[in-house]
């Protein structure tokens, strides 16, 4: 650190003069294989917050916090605050914001608001734009990866504090790991992502405290994808590895004798001795931040929940660890307010009336024209970002328990014919109103004649009524069962059914309840359905729909051959390629991803019809630091950077 100080001072001076043009996106070089120490903000000195070294009096706080009897802002911030970098430079031209205001959202679920969850979520390390192409330290000050991709060392930010002002220490990490993750009662089975490989040879990670700011997570096999797991997979937060021990220990049997816990257990409505239930009901995981129990819970997120109920209210966390390049403590907006409404149409009405400042999940593409028309009147703006996953892909269950069905659908020529039968342009136009493009992962050729020819060749002859017969002489039927959870699904399914009927196939359609869908999917009872897969777009994820298009193969793979059925070699190759992503470093993984796309393109494992699907989001027109480049979800991650223009 010392040696770059003069450099820093020069840069700081420069920054002062060009304050308004400041960029804040921290560009750290991608993780390399070598042992590279990556102190949070020193890789690119230009990104160092003003006066981070030496004179710290220049940090600024929101007027909202003035006169609240808090310690001065520099004492609340860590020694080296995180310079915010939620979006890469090419996605956002960062502007220094102004403090104040309340961000209003709406939700239809009683206790979860996905807009707020994503704003609040803070992973240990983050990946700007949620792209997975580079990883920068976030809650932690820095990290190190060993050459063999087995040992990950994390350094905590010195002076980082929980929202109640208590310091974050290595004890909090020890508590989260040793007393929760490694506690058999609280964590009967360790999540797969904390195990060195997804098959039976996988061993849990080992944990080591190096010094009072440093800890090591090691695996017995290379696991280069671990960082991307921490950063973005499944929207993880810091809560797996950091828990406020000073608060939670009063509910943990190791620190508080069971006898003392009993009254608490009783008043929480559990049976005597059920301290685990008590602990779980008090601990707040990252995705539970909007639940009533999160009121008063110490967090590291930009806002703290102050009121639960129909209207959930959040206020800024005075100890939040991020600043902008002008030294302003983030977030800019002081309060969040989420209102419960009874249905989605109500959300649209409230947006039209200008009563909502940000809504991401509830804006569907068919509503865009209506919303655009009323932009002026409602004082909002509709941004069209990209979606972080392919939408509703089409799956045929290759492991459904019926020999005739299997014989037909496992023939790659059959799947090729079906792909030829899909008019992807029509799908893009009808389902997405043109806000997408046909996916080229699989051929986008639409050729009914050729498809019919292939189907004839593989022996699916047409019967007297013009419908193709299976090898057993009965009409071959593709029965779609569609979850009613997503309204797009049914539109797509109707279209696909019509397109495949052109091939002389008997396609039926049934809409079922979401919970029933899950049950039937798990029991391998769905023959044909529609479900989304993040894999092809958000490459770092291991979900490429294999639990829908081949549940038994997927089980076999995940259980190390104990359950399910052994997949054929081509499928094994694909699974191998997908799970190898875990072991690889970032650059290698990026290359590998194309391999997987090719493998899917060759084998038509499932049908991916569209890519680059738009994710419209309605935002108050006065809010700054939002753009229409990059992924919608990434814009949402950057909530602490938004501000109200005066």
């Amino acid at each position, binding site marked *: 650190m010392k040696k770059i100080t003069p450099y820093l001072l020069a840069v700081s001076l420069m920054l002062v003069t060009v304050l308004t043009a400041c960029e804040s996106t921290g560009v750290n070089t991608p993780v390399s294989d070598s042992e590279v120490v990556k102190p949070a903000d020193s890789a690119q000195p230009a990104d160092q917050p003003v006066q981070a070294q030496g004179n710290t009096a220049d940090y600024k706080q929101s007027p909202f916090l003035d006169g609240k009897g808090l310690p001065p802002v520099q004492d609340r911030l860590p020694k080296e605050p995180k310079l915010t970098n939620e979006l890469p430079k090419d996605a956002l031209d960062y502007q220094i914001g102004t403090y104040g205001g309340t961000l209003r959202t709406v939700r239809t*679920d*009683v*206790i*979860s608001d*996905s807009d707020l969850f994503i704003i609040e979520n803070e992973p240990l390390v983050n990946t700007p734009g949620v792209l997975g192409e580079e990883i920068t330290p976030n809650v932690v000050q820095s990290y190190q990866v060993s050459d063999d991709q087995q040992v990950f060392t994390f350094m905590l930010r010195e002076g980082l504090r929980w929202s109640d002002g208590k310091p974050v220490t290595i004890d909090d990490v020890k508590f989260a790991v040793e007393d929760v993750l490694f506690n058999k009662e*609280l*964590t*009967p*089975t*360790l*999540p797969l*992502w904390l195990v060195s490989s997804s098959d039976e040879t996988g061993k849990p990670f080992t944990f080591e405290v190096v010094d009072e700011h440093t800890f090591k997570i090691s695996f017995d096999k290379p696991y280069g994808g671990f960082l991307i797991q921490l950063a973005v*997979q*499944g*929207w*993880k937060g810091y809560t797996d590895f950091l828990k406020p021990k000073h608060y939670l220990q009063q509910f943990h049997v190791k620190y508080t004798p069971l006898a003392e816990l009993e009254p608490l257990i009783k008043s929480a*409505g*559990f049976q005597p001795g*059920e301290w*685990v*239930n008590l602990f*779980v*009901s008090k601990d707040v*995981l990252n*995705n539970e931040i909007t*639940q*009533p*129990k999160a009121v008063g819970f110490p967090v590291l997120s930009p806002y703290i929940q102050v*009121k*639960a*109920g*129909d*209207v959930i*209210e959040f206020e800024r966390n005075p100890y939040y660890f991020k600043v902008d390049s002008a030294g302003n403590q983030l977030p800019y907006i002081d309060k969040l307010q989420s*209102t419960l*409404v*009874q*249905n989605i149409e*109500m959300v649209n*009405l*409230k947006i*039209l*009336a*200008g*009563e909502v400042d940000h809504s991401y*999940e509830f804006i569907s593409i068919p509503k865009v024209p209506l919303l655009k028309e009323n932009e002026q*009147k409602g004082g909002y703006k509709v941004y069209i970002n990209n979606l*972080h*996953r392919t939408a509703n892909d089409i799956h045929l269950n290759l492991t459904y328990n019926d020999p005739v069905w299997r014989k037909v659908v496992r023939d790659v020529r059959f799947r090729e014919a079906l792909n030829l039968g899909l008019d992807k342009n029509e799908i893009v136009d009808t389902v997405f109103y043109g806000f997408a493009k046909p996916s080229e992962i699989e051929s986008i050729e639409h050729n009914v004649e050729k498809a019919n020819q292939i189907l004839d060749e593989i022996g699916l002859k047409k019967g007297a009524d013009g419908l193709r017969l299976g090898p057993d002489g009965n009409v071959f039927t593709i029965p779609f069962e569609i979850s009613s*959870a*997503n309204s797009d699904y049914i539109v797509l399914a109707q279209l696909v059914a019509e397109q495949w009927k052109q091939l002389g196939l008997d396609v039926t359609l049934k809409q079922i*309840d*979401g*919970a*029933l*869908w*899950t*049950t039937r999917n798990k029991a391998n009872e769905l023959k044909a359905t529609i479900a989304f897969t*993040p894999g092809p777009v958000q490459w770092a994820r291991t979900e490429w729909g294999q639990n829908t298009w081949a549940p038994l193969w997927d089980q076999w793979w995940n259980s190390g051959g104990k359950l399910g059925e052994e997949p054929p070699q081509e499928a094994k190759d694909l699974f191998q390629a997908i799970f190898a992503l875990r072991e690889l470093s970032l650059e290698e993984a990026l290359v590998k991803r194309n391999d997987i796309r090719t493998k899917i393109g060759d084998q038509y494992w499932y049908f991916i019809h569209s890519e680059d699907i738009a994710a419209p989001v309605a935002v108050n027109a006065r809010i700054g630091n939002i753009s229409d480049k990059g992924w919608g979800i990434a814009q949402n991650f950057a909530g602490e950077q938004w501000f109200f223009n005066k």
Partner: protein
Amino acid sequence: MLRYICNRLLQLIPILFAISLIVFIIIQLPPGDFLTTYVEQLRLTGTEVADSTIANLKAQYGLDQPLYAQYLLWMKNMILHGDLGTSIQWNMPVSEVIGDRLMLTIIISLISLIVVWAIAIPIGIYSATHQYSFGDYFFSFIGFIGLAVPGFLIALILVYIVFTQTGVSITGLFSPEYQGAPWSWDKVWNMLPRLAIPVVIIGMSGTAGLIRITRGMLLDELSKQYVITARAKGVAEQKLLFKYPVRMAINPLISTIGWTLPALISGEAIVSIVLNLPTTGPVLLKALMVQDMYLAGSFLLILSVLTVCGTLISDILLAALDPRIRFGGVNR
């Protein structure tokens, strides 16, 4: 009379017990449980939930217990502690979830009921006494519209018109600053004007129906011999009308109180969803959809209690009002 009431009250116990059992079983009939729905929701948003987290939640909500154990626990807490259980979906005690909403619902329902009666009975009497006049046709026409058009559709149209004309979304019962605020006179004043729309819409079909019933009943009565006799004896027309036929004509109103109470509370569900009212209907619907069994179960139980009590009240009132019923048993 007192004995009769006591008898009826005692009968409530087995009925409510049976209802609670059936309700609990029916809620659990669909595949999966609350957590299946919860995990499915998280999965749709791309959030991973670790298996052990799910196991922990299962234990926390007692979902790992067999059905009968869940039921017995619910019953035990309810009878011994008056505790309706915890709503899994809301993460709050059921009583807290329902409390405010039930009060608002009852306020809306009662006001609606009063408005309905206040409008329907005079109009019904007018229509009957001025049969085939312009006024009769006019009110019949309006009444048929009110009967035929579902309340939620009228609500939608109203919301649309108000929004396009004024740019205001007339939703909810309070303006934003009072939402979730503790009760105060200011809050009540804030609510009253906003009550008008739901009260009118919820009351609309009831009013229309009641006009038709009152008119029909009264026409029946008016042509009966006792009316003719009374008129022949020279009883003043007004006095005659209100002393005899009208009393007969409003009998159905009282005998239907039994199902008016629960219908008003659950029947406003769709209107409440459209108008975004913080009442019980939408909560019940959602609880049923996600299999939040303690919340849904407690709700249905409360509705059952209301139905049964309503029936009791209407029986007592009928006996008090209608001498034919009161003396019906004595002749034996």
